[in-house]
């Protein structure tokens, strides 16, 4: 019998159609991957199965879960199924747990809700579930609170909660998106193992084709609330027909064309940089300690070079960026652009600063929503001694916007009138407007959907060729770094552990950490990648 069968599911939320005619099924022991870009309705499909939809939702069609018609069941009955027959793991591990309860309580709750059993027994079984989720009791006792765990560990608690009663179906909604590659790999392996052990069905939602390709037996591709294509993983990946699927495939392994080679003259020289953050004092009158976020980092960027910087979350990438930009003073070491220090006499050096710009990760947060695009784009003019005014200024804005593929008219609009990709273009326009020598891209494409990401990467490559720009490209996403950089630095806990030509490093990583990173990064199978490049 089919474990989960969704038939002709349509969903409206307060009159807005969200899902149309979605059909898919999951068998016991099977992993079904759902991919699609942001807003395509992946999460809503999952919530429909759980019947945990937002207020004002109207479902039609059929969802049957091991014989239960979910759409026809009473709320009471649904509650009995949730957690027992079907469980769910969410994207954001940091907020998915109640901060005020111990992890033991929270896992045991799943059991106590569904079974009449003693608290003692529930605790015992909770410990067991946690152990199965690779949180052994000796290191992670039940009495821990969520804030005492890392993101990956929290996600394991959520998984333990979900599998405590060995449900028939587990729905995982982007369970690893917020995690580091290495952690992601561990969690994915855990999920796979649990599916095998318990024979449960797994509906795995992701926006990353590579993740799904690696895990799923069956793949469903969604777009704007519809299923555009689905089939067994192996054959689907190699025999995609729908243009959207093909585009998705192509974009997920995109390598922008670049020409022009870096010169030999170093543009930026970073020497033995150390950046300490004070930590709260210990005890009432104790001395404040320090936390070393950047620990003796040295490297050069040559003019016209694309340098990549990879490393896991918290390893100090952004801290280093801020130091290079002269936003914070470093404790020791020097940073110089063309020989001129960015920080002189405890004050940022304006002359150097105006030659560097930055593009941030979050296309939504990096603009003041109250200003018009024109004003936003020309903000770096503040760095100039004689900024252009009036018509000159308008011309400069128009030119910057046009160079990133937008129109001059867009200057009069507000930022909320643009999509994420367009916003990132505006961010690049802002960086370009004072014609800097060096642009630092801090996770500049991480928040974008694959197809949009491909466009932005192309744009960056194109601009670098046209204006002879130098990039410092920071990312935790190895595939991106690999596709666009000439040289790469690998950072771990504030230190550069390896650096070299990108191709060289990826082909033959020397440092164990680099090896681990590369091994953990999900990749499309070689033949599929080749296929992607043909389209």
């Amino acid at each position, binding site marked *: 019998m089919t474990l989960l069968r969704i038939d002709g599911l349509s969903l409206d939320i307060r009159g807005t159609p969200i899902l149309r005619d979605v059909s898919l099924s999951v068998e016991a022991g099977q992993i079904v991957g759902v991919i699609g870009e942001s807003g395509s309705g992946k999460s809503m499909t999952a919530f429909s199965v*759980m019947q945990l939809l937002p207020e004002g939702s109207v479902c039609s069609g059929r969802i049957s879960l091991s014989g239960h018609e979910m759409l026809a069941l009473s709320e*009471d009955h649904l509650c009995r199924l*949730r*957690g027992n027959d079907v469980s769910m793991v969410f994207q954001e591990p940091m907020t*998915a747990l109640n*901060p005020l309860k111990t992890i033991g309580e929270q896992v045991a709750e799943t059991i106590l809700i569904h079974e009449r059993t003693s608290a003692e027994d529930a605790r015992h079984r909770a410990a067991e579930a946690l152990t199965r989720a690779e949180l052994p009791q000796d290191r992670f006792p039940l009495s821990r609170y969520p*804030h005492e765990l890392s993101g990956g560990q929290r996600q394991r608690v959520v998984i333990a*909660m979900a599998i405590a009663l060995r449900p028939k179906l587990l729905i995982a909604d982007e369970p690893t998106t917020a995690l580091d590659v290495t952690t992601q790999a561990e969690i994915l392996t855990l999920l796979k193992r649990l599916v095998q052990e318990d024979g449960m069905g797994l509906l795995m939602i992701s926006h990353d084709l590579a993740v799904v390709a690696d895990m799923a037996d069956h793949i469903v591709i969604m777009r704007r609330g519809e299923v555009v294509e689905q089939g067994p993983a192996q054959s689907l990946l190699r025999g995609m027909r729908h243009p959207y699927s093909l585009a998705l495939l192509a974009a997920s392994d995109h390598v922008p064309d670049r020409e022009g080679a870096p010169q030999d003259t170093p543009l930026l020289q970073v020497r033995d940089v150390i950046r300490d953050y004070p930590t709260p004092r210990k005890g*009432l009158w104790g001395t404040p300690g320090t936390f070393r976020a950047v620990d003796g980092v040295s490297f050069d960027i040559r003019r016209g070079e694309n340098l990549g910087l990879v490393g896991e979350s918290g390893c100090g990438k952004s801290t280093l960026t801020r130091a290079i930009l002269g936003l914070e003073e470093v404790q020791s070491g020097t940073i110089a652009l063309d020989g001129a220090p960015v920080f002189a006499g405890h004050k940022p050096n304006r002359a150097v600063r105006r030659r560097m710009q930055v593009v941030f990760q979050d296309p939504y947060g990096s603009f003041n929503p109250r200003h018009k695009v024109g004003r936003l784009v020309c903000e770096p003019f503040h760095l100039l001694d004689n900024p252009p005014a009036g018509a000159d200024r308008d011309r400069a804005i128009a030119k910057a916007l046009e160079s990133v593929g937008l129109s001059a008219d867009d200057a009069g609009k507000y930022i909320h009138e643009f999509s994420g990709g367009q916003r990132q273009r505006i961010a690049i326009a802002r960086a370009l407007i004072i014609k800097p020598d060096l642009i630092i891209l801090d996770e500049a494409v991480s928040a974008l959907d694959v197809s949009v990401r491909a466009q932005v990467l192309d744009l960056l490559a194109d601009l670098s060729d046209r204006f002879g720009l130098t990039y410092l490209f920071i990312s935790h996403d190895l595939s991106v770094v690999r596709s666009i950089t000439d040289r790469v630095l690998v950072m771990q806990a504030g230190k550069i552990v390896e650096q070299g030509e990108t191709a060289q490093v990826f082909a033959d990583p020397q440092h164990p950490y680099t090896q681990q990173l590369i091994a953990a990064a999900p990749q499309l199978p070689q033949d599929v990648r080749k296929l992607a490049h043909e389209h």
Partner: protein
Amino acid sequence: MLRFIGKRLVSLVVTLWVASLVIFLSLEVVPGDPAAFMLGLNAQEDTLAALRDELGLNKGAVERYVDWVGGMLVGDFGTSYTYRTPVAQMVLDRVQVSLPLALYALTLSTLIAFPAGIWAAARRGKPADIAVMGVTQLGVAIPNFWFAMLMVLVFAINLRWFNAGGFAGWDAGFFAAMKSLTLPAIALALPQASILARVMRSSLLDTLNEDFVRTARAKGLTRGQALWRHALRNAMIPVLTIIGLQFAFLMAGAIIIENVFFLPGLGRLVFQAISARDLIVVESVVMLLVFAVVLVNFLVDLAYAAVDPRLRGRR
């Protein structure tokens, strides 16, 4: 945890010290001579001088400040200029009215606000919610002295269920005393309950939107279970803050209500003392109230720590 408490304690002491300076300095500039007030229209200059001498009003400001603070540290609040009794004794008498009144009002306010706020949040957008929101809107907007006036008119003068005011005293028995505090407590509690219910509701709605509530629902908890077991405790933090503020307000802010119901409470004591330029009483009571507020805030902070393990720090 200890560090947390220690830090709060230090800031508590500093706040109190600065407060004592502010109070003393601001009352130094008060015009009006307590001696003149006490002796009235026909007093003679030498009589006034004699009295001023006895009251210690001729000493220098620094000396008086040191005397005052030093005295307070050992529980000696000085002697009232007009009443000629130890301030500590007067305050103790008044606290027997003000504290129970504040607690009574706070209890009422919580007893009304919690169910109302939770009910409204659970039925968001439904008639129940709209009704609670409407009533609390009115409750916030009604001047409480006006409401008190109307209550006296209805319940004391017309229906004669309650006394129009006055405090029966604890000697008269617990119920008699509580009865005489009932109308004032209701008048005080109404706006507080309205505010609290609104805070409760909005805080609960916020937490109901949190991811972990969704997680709980996915475990199979019903809407109600998720609310009680997961949302409520998380929603308590802003509610605790408000309760702390309200307690402080009720201790001192009941002046007008104490007047309407002629209760011998702290507020009225200060009010009278201000009128009589009995500065030592004003200083001491205001200082005491500041102390109460700071202490309550400190306790609220401790309560946060009790509710929220993140504040307890690592073990």
